[in-house]
């Protein structure tokens, strides 16, 4: 029986820039940061109140892909193809104003939906997230 989820992957265009975005703008915490020499860096972050879910900030150029796959993935990420997650907050208007003040780009302002109030923003690579204050 599957019980929990511990890791999920977010493909990013630039790991250093993603580090800055997720920690300094979104306020995520670094869970694991392991330098792997020239072969890269294992970097995971987590939402402040959910340290047990590690989001792997994986560069699209990582050596696990062929050059062709890497280029395709890079293109898809840039175009905003991937919706990564729904992030919840206690007060969506305060969170929205704070993230906007920090330069986060929103594609949907807080809007009342049948499940709560939702906004949509993009990370520094192009991945999009739903920001929600659930009912």
């Amino acid at each position: 029986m599957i019980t929990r989820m511990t890791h999920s992957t977010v493909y990013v265009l630039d790991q250093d820039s993603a580090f800055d975005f997720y920690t300094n703008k979104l306020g995520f915490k670094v869970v694991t940061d392991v330098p792997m020499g020239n072969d890269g860096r294992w970097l995971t972050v987590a939402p402040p109140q959910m340290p047990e879910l590690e989001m792997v900030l994986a560069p699209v150029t990582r050596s696990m892909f062929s050059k062709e796959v890497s280029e395709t993935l890079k293109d898809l990420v840039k175009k905003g193809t991937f919706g990564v997650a729904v992030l919840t907050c206690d007060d969506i208007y305060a969170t929205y104003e704070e993230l906007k003040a920090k330069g986060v780009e929103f594609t949907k302002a807080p809007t009342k939906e049948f499940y709560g109030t939702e906004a949509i923003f993009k990370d520094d690579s192009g991945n999009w997230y739903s920001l929600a204050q659930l009912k």
Partner: protein
Amino acid sequence: MKGQPYPRMYLYRRLVQAKLFIDTHYAEPIDLGAIADEAFFSKFHFIKQFKSIYRQTPHQYLISLRIEKARLLLKAGLPVSDVCYRVGFESLPSFSGLFKRMTGMTPSAYLAEQQDLKAQIAAAPLTYIPGCFAHKNGWLKK
């Protein structure tokens, strides 16, 4: 993208600006009364509104922010006394006491723990990476 106005929008903006001011100036002596004035609130109203959004008073938020910043500096290996003053505390005993109350460890114990962890990661990095990911990245070949 231009958002639609929403209820109490200007109140939210003033409170968020006040919070961001604390986020930027946490290491300095902060006069919360002056922040309230700047945001056009009475001190009482400011504390009440801030708490209704952030579930902490501005003072509690400032202290928790300083402790969080202190954790990051200790993690980076800075000495406890440097960290204390760098994050805005004026007395080492009060910093140590608050740090212990909020994290369960003294700053020096936390510093030692983090440096020990760093040494362990350097000695055996793969212990901290799920095997499947390490394999896919070619890190197991070494």
